[in-house]
């Protein structure tokens, strides 16, 4: 699974996700990556989210919308809301999970609870950072 989130100069947020599913998956199985609100979600003024991992659990949690709601209605920060899903809800289900997300101020996070995640972000100064394991 791959995904991207972005904030543009006009303050608009967007998210996109794409996947092949997983090895040996049943034919016709649909992942969270094409379910708006689960694997992909964006709401101006709040955040944009793209998820990766066991899709069934992101669908059940409506993960992208849940993160935006915890920020919008509970006042959580992007980091609190995304860590809550990846290290709270998904960990409780013992599910490998990760995501990339960005808020309306351009703060970006790339949390994951597996041994690695292909990830990248651009620092506010324009520096490109990519990583795989704990680098």
């Amino acid at each position, binding site marked *: *699974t*791959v*995904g*991207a*989130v*972005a*904030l*543009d*100069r006009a*303050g*608009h*947020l*967007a*998210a*996109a*996700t*794409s*996947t*092949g*599913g997983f*090895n*040996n*998956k*049943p*034919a*016709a*199985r*649909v*992942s969270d990556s*094409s*379910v*708006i609100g689960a694997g*992909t*979600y*964006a*709401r*101006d003024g709040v955040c944009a989210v*793209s998820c*990766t*991992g066991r899709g069934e659990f992101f669908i059940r949690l409506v993960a992208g919308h849940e993160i935006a709601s915890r920020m919008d209605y509970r006042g959580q920060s992007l980091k609190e809301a995304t860590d809550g899903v990846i290290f709270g809800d998904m960990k409780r289900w013992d599910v*490998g999970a*990760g995501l990339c997300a*960005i808020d309306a101020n*351009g703060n*970006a*996070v*790339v949390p994951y*609870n*597996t*041994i*690695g*995640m*292909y*990830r*990248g*972000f*651009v620092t*506010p100064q324009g520096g*490109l950072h990519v990583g*795989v394991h704990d680098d």
Partner: protein
Amino acid sequence: MAGPVGVAIHGGCGALRREDLTGAEWAAAREALRRSLRAAWDIVGRGGSSLDAVEAAVTVMEDSPAFNAGHGAALNADGFHELDASIMDGATLRAGGVSCVRRIRNPVRAARAILDEGEWVNFAGEGADAWAERAGLAMVPNAYFTTQRRVDALRTLKELEAQHASHRASEGEKHG
């Protein structure tokens, strides 16, 4: 006054240990991540839309064999590819998605075309392929998405399941 801009991407989480790939394979994956970031950053950096930026970033990764999306995607139990993708615009809550498509070279571009067309949100299966073809998107045979690494992964998992009927694939065996 123009506001801040930002981009973040992921290429999938999982259980790949450092020793699971060669140095060249790790380097190729990192290079694809950089190209993806740069594609998005160039757009928002010159005042373009976040929607165009995320579509561009995901397209780069769909075209790279390093990631489980587009070319390089996993194989299903029947030995072919079914791909899912979606995109969402935070300004208008417009969205587009495709599920279980088999012939669209870049599924995220089909999702964007559905978003832009505005009437629907998600199309699935052969109908989605046909819609994308009518919309003029690049279409490929299903084998375009196949890589040797995925063929090997499917065969290994099926052999394990044949040997141990109770074998339940680990996250690593599923997701790599």
